[in-house]
């Protein structure tokens, strides 16, 4: 177990290094000089050259990589300065992180709730009218882009029913929860729909297996069979999916934060891309990759707990 953990950690660090190099290449190899971009076309060549020297863009590419990588973690370095905000990219990033984390966690909880309610209620009576209509509804939810779901929720809950605010983040924690409800629900609807479908199929597969028949034959109460034998054994695929969904969730936050005007990492990234604020783009992209990588690591570690047959020897 320990050697497996060590191996996974080393692998994670290697991937992280790869991600950093990839992000750096992506930003540097793409045509367009950041200094030319920020200064505009009509600035004399000397000013551009000064700017290039200031950000270390005149150095060899390998040296530039170390400067930009080191700059991200040192508040005094000029390389880590946001070109637009004129302060360390790390601090701009840290300011926006809580809203995104709260949104992601909130929507995960809502998605799991939606999946449990729909998955369990449809698996109990497969083929019923409710089951079939839910199958259609979840399929439709999967094909809708998140900004469309967000807009529909705004129309119904904010503009018509006046239950939740259309945008903003709020001041206190409870205020945050109220403001983030619609954005989190937007993300949770498509993720929850997919989880529900997988949970339903998984439950039905387990219910068909011989050991469930045996449990019934032995006279174990129905409820106990469902809770202890069926439910726990059906969790493997949904948990795997939940891990994969973190990546989609990150993509989703970018869109949803823009729709609901939330001060999170996603909206920061879109704005930085439009402004070509390279240090900020670099740190947000790396951060999203870290979130995805560490979640998949976490899911791998949870497996043996859900299914003791999976052992990392």
């Amino acid at each position, binding site marked *: 177990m320990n050697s497996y953990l060590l191996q996974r950690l080393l692998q994670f660090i290697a991937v992280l290094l790869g991600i950093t190099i990839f992000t750096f290449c992506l930003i540097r190899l793409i045509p367009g000089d950041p200094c030319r971009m920020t200064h505009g076309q009509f600035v004399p060549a000397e000013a551009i050259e000064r700017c290039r020297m200031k950000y270390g863009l005149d150095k060899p590419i390998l040296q530039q990589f170390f400067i930009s990588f080191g700059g991200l973690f040192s508040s005094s370095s000029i390389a880590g300065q946001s070109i637009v905000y004129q302060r360390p990219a790390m601090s701009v990033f840290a300011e926006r992180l809580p809203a995104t984390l709260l949104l992601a966690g909130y929507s995960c909880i809502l998605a799991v709730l939606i999946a449990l309610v729909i998955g369990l209620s449809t698996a109990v009576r497969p083929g019923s009218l409710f089951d079939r209509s839910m199958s259609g509804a979840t399929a439709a939810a999967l094909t809708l882009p998140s900004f469309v779901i967000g807009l529909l929720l705004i129309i119904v809950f904010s503009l018509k029913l006046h239950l939740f605010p259309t945008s903003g983040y709020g001041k206190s924690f409870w205020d945050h929860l109220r403001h983030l409800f619609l954005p989190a629900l937007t993300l949770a609807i498509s993720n929850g729909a997919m989880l529900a479908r997988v949970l339903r199929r998984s439950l039905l597969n387990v219910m068909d297996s011989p050991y469930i028949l045996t449990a019934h034959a032995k006279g174990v109460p129905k409820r106990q069979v469902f809770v202890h034998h069926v439910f726990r054994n059906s969790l493997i695929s949904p948990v795997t999916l939940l891990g994969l969904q973190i990546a989609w969730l990150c993509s989703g936050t970018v869109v949803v934060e823009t729709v609901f005007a939330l001060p999170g990492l996603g909206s920061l990234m879109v704005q930085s*891309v439009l402004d070509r604020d390279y240090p900020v783009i670099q740190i947000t992209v790396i951060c999203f990759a870290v979130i995805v990588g560490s979640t998949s690591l976490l899911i791998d570690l949870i497996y043996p707990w859900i299914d003791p047959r999976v052992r990392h020897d």
Partner: protein
Amino acid sequence: MIELGYLKEDWAAEGTRKVRPRFPAALVLGTVGVIVLSLLFMIGAHFLSYAPNDQDMDNRLQAPGPLHWLGTDNYGRDLFSRLLHGGRIDFQIAIIATFFTFTIGMTLGALAGFYEGLLDTLLMRVVDVLIAFPDLILVIVIVGLLGQDLLGLYIALGLVGWVPYARLVRAEILTAKHRDYILAARALGCNNSRLLWHHLLPHSISQAIIYATSSVIFNILAISSLGYLGVGIRPPQAEWGAMIAEGRSFILSAPALVLFPVLMLTVTGVTFSVLGDGLAELLQPIRKRLSH
């Protein structure tokens, strides 16, 4: 018992090769749907009386009527025409990008799975890195930095899209190459390239073909999300996501501006997912029946 019956039927079909293949209803429905949509966007869009960018400031925000079938937007542009032209762009990019990513991913995956060694190790490390990025974020960054044009979109979708195909095909090839029929083909004197492209690949791409339909849906969602965020294709080019973003300000006074693009996105998405279900049923019939 029923499952055994199915198996018997399939065996019979395999043995005699006389039973005609049955096409699943979902496959027929999905194919017809995709053909209708393609005709509508590719050919129908050319036969309209209004160009997508023709402005008629006297007839702004018109309700649906005989003159403008679905009404007009805030610049007096015909919504129906914009809807079809927007569909053409979304459809075209999504399908071409899917085709390229499929080809690239399949080739790389097949080569890596077949030859293994250094190529496989290198490819899998690249895959590890790319898979850690949330797709849409990578697409936004690449398109935003490369410039918001068609080429940028193709490069972004291409860079992100080939990974799942490579993984799927590689995994299938890794197991398929140890089967008996490959040994038999080798014994008959097949060289590596014939073995890979004629014998292994046709048996290893069904998963990838099924995945291609969800990849089209992902591409359409990505293009429209970029359009909505203002990072995608530049206005005034009609594009569903950008149309929804523009119509947002008039959502209460002229809901048609948002409603119809949303409807088209949903119909297109559902059509491709039905096609995907149909393909899955056709290409993996026994596995599907046995799994449930």
